[in-house]
Every structure is written in C-alpha cells, then in structure tokens.
C-alpha cells in the first residue's frame, strides 16, 4: 500500500513539475522544475529497488548537469522569456495527437510483458539491486559498449572545444 501511494504522489509531482517547466517564463524557474522532475524520478528508482541508480541520477542530473544549466542562466543573466503566439494548427491538432499518443501508449503497455509485470507485481518481491551486480554487468558483460559510449562522449567534448575555439 505504501509504495502504491508513494508512486502516485511522486508521479504527480514529476508530471506537475514537467508542466511547470514548460509553463514557467523565468528560465531559472524552468530549471528548478526540471530539478524537481529529476529528483522525483530518482525516488521512483528507489521504489524499484535501484538504490545506486537513484543516487547516481541525483548526482549526475540534479547535481552536475542542472548546476551547469543554472550556472549558465545566471552567467548570461537571461531575462524573462518572450512568448510567441501559438500557431493555429498546433493549437487544434496538437491536443488531439497528444490524446491519441497517450491512448496508444496505454494500450501497448497494458498488452506488453512489462505491463503484465507492473499489473501483477507485488511489493513483497522488492529486493534492492546490488551495486556489485551492477558493476559486474557494466565492466564485464557489457564492457565494450560501455567503453564505446565513453569514447563517444569524449569525442563530443573535443568537438565542443573545437567549435568554441573556432571564432578565435
């Protein structure tokens, strides 16, 4: 019962913060809402028993990436965002498309294997995932894709540096 209540509480916070992120006109308020989304996601991971992933979610997203966002917003002293009028087409077609997408997702999820697990899963099956198991997977089973990803990120960093230097 408690995980059930917690899940819906956090889900509402996450969705509410995501809406606030789009609606807010002050860039810092948007950034703060995004941090709230990240943190509620982290707690949702915790409910699933993924302690390490949850902590890393906070460290990486809320603690590092979003700090950089806030830092840049502060440094550029970005003012209140200007609103353009929505296009007529988006105003009418958008909600309809969104509705269909949500229905489609719901139908698909309820029929898939994941959906069945979610529907019948009981809180008693809760077991915290071990960090040792996680690191075995990353550094033994999936070592090559992991290292390939890190090289990809390194290339992106060097690319950013080259682009930044170009003007000089």
């Amino acid at each position, binding site marked *: 019962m408690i995980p059930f209540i917690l899940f819906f509480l956090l889900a509402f916070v996450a969705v509410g913060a995501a809406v606030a992120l789009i609606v807010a006109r002050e860039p*810092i308020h948007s950034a703060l809402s995004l*941090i709230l989304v990240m943190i509620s996601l982290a707690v949702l991971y915790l409910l699933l028993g993924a302690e390490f992933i949850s902590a890393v979610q906070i460290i990486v997203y809320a603690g590092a990436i979003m700090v950089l966002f806030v830092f840049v917003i502060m440094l550029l002293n970005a003012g209140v965002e200007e609103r353009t009028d929505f296009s007529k087409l988006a105003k009418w077609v958008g909600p309809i498309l969104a509705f269909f997408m949500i229905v489609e997702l719901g139908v698909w999820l309820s029929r898939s294997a994941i959906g069945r697990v979610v529907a019948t899963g009981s809180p008693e099956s809760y077991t915290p995932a071990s960090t040792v198991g996680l690191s075995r997977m990353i550094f033994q089973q999936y070592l090559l894709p992991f290292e390939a990803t890190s090289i990809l990120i390194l290339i992106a960093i060097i690319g950013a540096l080259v682009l930044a230097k170009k003007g000089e």
Partner: protein
Amino acid sequence: MEFFNGKPALALLVVSLVKIAVLLFVLMTALAYLTWFERKVVAHIQSRWGPYYVGAHGLLQPLADGVKFLFKEDVTPPTADKFVYILAPFMALALALTAIALIPFGPPTLTLLGQPIFVVANVSISLVFLFAITSIGVYGVALAGWSSNSKYPLLGGVRSSAQMISYEVSMTLSVVGVLLLARSFGFNEIIANQAGSIINWHVFTLNGFPQIIGFLCYMTAAVAETNRVPFDLPEAETELVAGFHTEYSAFKFAMFFMAEYANMITVSCLATILFFGGWLSPFPDSWTWQNYLPAAGLLLIAAYCAYDVVVYMKGIARLQLSVVTLLAAVGGIVCLIPAVHPYIIGVFWFVAKLFVFMFFYVIVRGTLPRFRYDQLMSFGWKFLLPVSLANLVVTAFFIILRRG
C-alpha cells in the same frame, strides 16, 4: 527497506523520529557553540579575548545571537524573486542537515527495537547518497545569489557555483582510493575495514596503500566545498561585500550561517569515517583503561572550571560557571559506571576526531590569506585533480599487486 513489509514499519517510524529529534537538538546546540568556539580561537590567535561578557567566558553568546537573529527585521528586497529568495536558505539548511542523517556516530551493533541507535538513515550505499545530497547543496548558494537581483550576490553565486563544481570532482575522486580498500559504499563496512588499532586506519594502513595523499586532497577540496577560508571567494568581503548572502537578513541569514557550519560538520564526519576509523578507538581493544578516558576528560573539564570559579570569576559569571562545573562533574561520574561504557566510548572517539577537524578548520581560518580567483581555479584543476587521480591509480596498482 523493511519499511514496506508491514510489521517493523511502526518501530522504524517511532525510533527514527526519536533519533531525528535528538540529533537535531544536539546538532543545533553544537552549531551554536561552534560559532562561539570559532570566535574564541580566532580571537586568541589574534591576541584578543573574543566573546566575554554574555555569560562566563561568553558561553551564553550563541543564545544571545540566536535571539537577535529571531527578532531582527526580515528585509526582502523589492526586486527579488520572492519564491526563490525564500526557497534558497531553506534548501541550503535542509540539505546540510539531511546529509548528517547518514552519518553513523557509534557502533551499529547497539540497537533499540531492532534499529541501530547511532545512525538515523541506515542505508547500504551511504557514501553515494551523501555525495548525492552534497551535490545538490550548491543550489542554496547559487539561487540565493541569483534571486537577490543585485550585482554582488550574483557575482558571489556565480563564483561559488564554479568553485563547488570544480572542487567536487577532486573531492569525489580522492575518496575512491578508500572505496577500493574497503570494497564497499557503506559507512559501516568502511569503518569495519579499519578495525584493530591506529595502524589499520585507511590514512596509515599498509594493507594496500596508505591514503595520506587521498586524505590531504580530500581535506583541501572539502574546505573549498564548504566555502571556507582560504577558499571563501563567494563571500570575499573586500570584493563582494558579503557575496551571495549580502541581501539576506535576520533568520534567513542565520540559516545560511547554520548551513555552512553543518556542512563543515558533515565533511569532517566524512573525513573521520573514511580515513580515521570513524568511531573506532586508536588503541587495541585489549587496553581496557581507555574505557575511562571520557570520564577522565569530563572530570578534567570540571576541575578546570572549578578552579576558574574559585580564582577568577566574579558575580553572576561565578554562578553560571558553577552550573557548567556541576554538569561536567555529574557527566564524568556517570561515565565511570562500566555499564555505560559501550554506549559512550564509540561516540567519544567520533566526537574527539570531529573536534580535531573543527579545530583545524578554525586554525586555517585564523592564519591563511585568501586565494585569488584564478589561483583557486588553476589549483583545483591543474594540481588537486591530477594528484587525486594519481592517488587512485597508485592505490589500485598496490591493491592488485597485493592480491597477486
């Protein structure tokens, strides 16, 4: 997470609430007296007396300061972003206090209703959670600087964000050596790995590679993380008035102040746990006389205060110090009872080590000049980061060598 399985949930809830209440009370008192301690020590470094008039030796000064903060006018600048302006100090203090919930102050074997007494949140990967909490701690300072809508706080906020991001990297890397030695993220396991005596502490251990370099890197980065001298550029008063909290007054200012001191306590606790054996005694267990050290310490304090009361104190101060003497004497006598020993000895060593770190913080503040901003950045990235990386590589090498 036995919380979800029903039955022990109530016991967990009740015990946790009691622990939180006790910890908050002790912590708030400690924070208040830490300001007194700092003012006294810095004053003596500079050949002054420090607080002296409110209570004997200024012992009631923190109380007077607290009352003053409560009753001062709380000014909010008209151009400030109200919501964020109020949110920032709450965030700073709440995060600083949450981090302390993860610290084990004593052995995990002592339990009450099946819950360990000396730690509020008994998590298996406490270190990662602690870093998660401290990593979002930067928002308090950054948002305070931004929301004040004034140029000095903004500069202070930007400076502190940059500084905290830079030094967090070295701080996290410098403790990885310890993780390699202990092979766990949990504080209880890390402390258990240092059992024995002082030579088994991670900072000196020869079972692997002594983490003395890791400790020095950690401590430097920790001082920078807590925005203290010589890295207190976010609030450099010669350049930025008071930095990020220039526009804050009354209790909101006090909250930033408390958050700073709570952060000092957190990083010192972490240094104690990771490098200096946490609540473990520096002596082997067979030396049983060490169980009487807490009592001896308290009785010594009582004796000194009694001497002071008789020889120097006059008027009301004489009465106030008599109360302190009495409390210390009663505490000392209680600590003599053998049944009490297992409950106090762990906490005694933990607090003793913590006190040394606090003293270090204050001495550094009293004696070192401030860095220039470019020096701060190049020191963090060009010296501290490579050194902590090198420490990690060398430690890993020695551990593999030992395992053969």
